[in-house]
């Protein structure tokens, strides 16, 4: 499961393009992660230009 640092995220949507299971969503409240889809691959975490994403233990 991904945790989003809303203070850092600029809602660019870039991370979504790397998520093979379409777990991420860009809403008007920022990036949301679907806990049921996320497989903790960290592709999005490594991509984010401003380090806004982290894996969170469930």
């Amino acid at each position, binding site marked *: 499961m991904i945790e989003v640092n809303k203070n850092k995220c*600029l*809602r660019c*949507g870039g991370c*979504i*393009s*790397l998520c093979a299971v379409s777990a991420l969503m860009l809403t008007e409240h920022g990036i949301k992660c679907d806990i049921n889809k996320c497989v903790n691959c960290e592709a999005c975490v*490594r991509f984010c230009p401003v380090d806004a994403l982290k894996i969170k233990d469930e």
Partner: protein
Amino acid sequence: MLMKNEYDAVVIGGGPAGSGAATAAAKNGLRVLMIEKRAEIGSPKRCGEGLSKSAAERMGIKESDPAWVCQNIKGATVYAPNGKFARVDFPDSEGWVIERKIFDKNLARKAAEAGATVVSKTEAISLLKENDKIIGVRIKHQDEEMDVKAKIIIAADGVESKIAREAGINTTLKHEDIASAAQYEMANVDVDQDRLELYFGNEIAGGGYVWIFPKGGKNANVGIGVRKPFAKRKAIEYLNDFINSHENLKKGSIIEFNTGGVPVGAIMKNMVTDNFIVAGDAAHQVNPIHGGGISESYVGGRIAGEIAAEAIKKDNTSKEFLSKYNDIWWNERGEKLQKIEKLRKVVESLKDDDLNWLADHLKGEDLVELSKANKFKFLAEIMMKRPSLLLLARKLI
């Protein structure tokens, strides 16, 4: 609201790809709806705002408009890691730094004038399917959900695209095929206002480059794109270091902060399925060496709109018929972009020493030819003079 619940074509996304598609489809007689999820088309930007004249011409823009031109550009200065630079000042490298917020809106206005209905703050939620066939799209307009039927859906939903995946087309990118980008729009900086500046080097921007795109007066977009596995740190860290080590930038102010993903590869062979086309960033239609996608997206969208119109007139919106879009796009742009991707793969393998060495051996006009993907053979020949580059050089031929 002026929206109906049935159209010939629904275009998802109001960027250049969407406007290109909606304009072409409407001009060719289709009833078109273009929806954009943001409240304002073009904002916030995800762009360095560089547009060459030749790229604009491909979009059908013959004259610049003072409404969106911030600065006329005469050429570029390309820096090697050791600070050595090559100047590129040729008619072919002319262009502008533009105001995307105005430019994108103007493209959308043209789509509306061509007859398309354009509605912002309206998001595509999911595709509507009947017996596995795409028959429309469920949208959310402000807080109201509704179903809109369409014979063809054109997904122009940008880098965050998920609609194509829902249609069964895999658009997921790997790290090597997408640059992780960050940019400050800066004020009160001293930069050459006539030229773009590009800085290469593994310590400066692993797997990418730093750009300074002058925006008129004392303003500039200062940004960076980097890629894993070449980049060891986050884009923003490289960018902050770069700015802090350049006195002319360090004293500047930050007017806007942007991030983004730039597809720079994974060019797609197939971008259609029954009743469905994907275009623009969503289909990775971007120049793989510099990441320019404004014109590529618009052109991809335009071809999509034209083929959609032809398909509907012939009452054949099957995958087989729509694959004409693949053929035309590959012929017009794909072949070229694929060649440029090959060049990108060679450039990213160069060590800083090699880049410095090349800076001594390449002239400005060589760089122009390279950026147009016209002649790689001469580059290969130059590289072959350096034993450590022999193997890489062969990849270019």
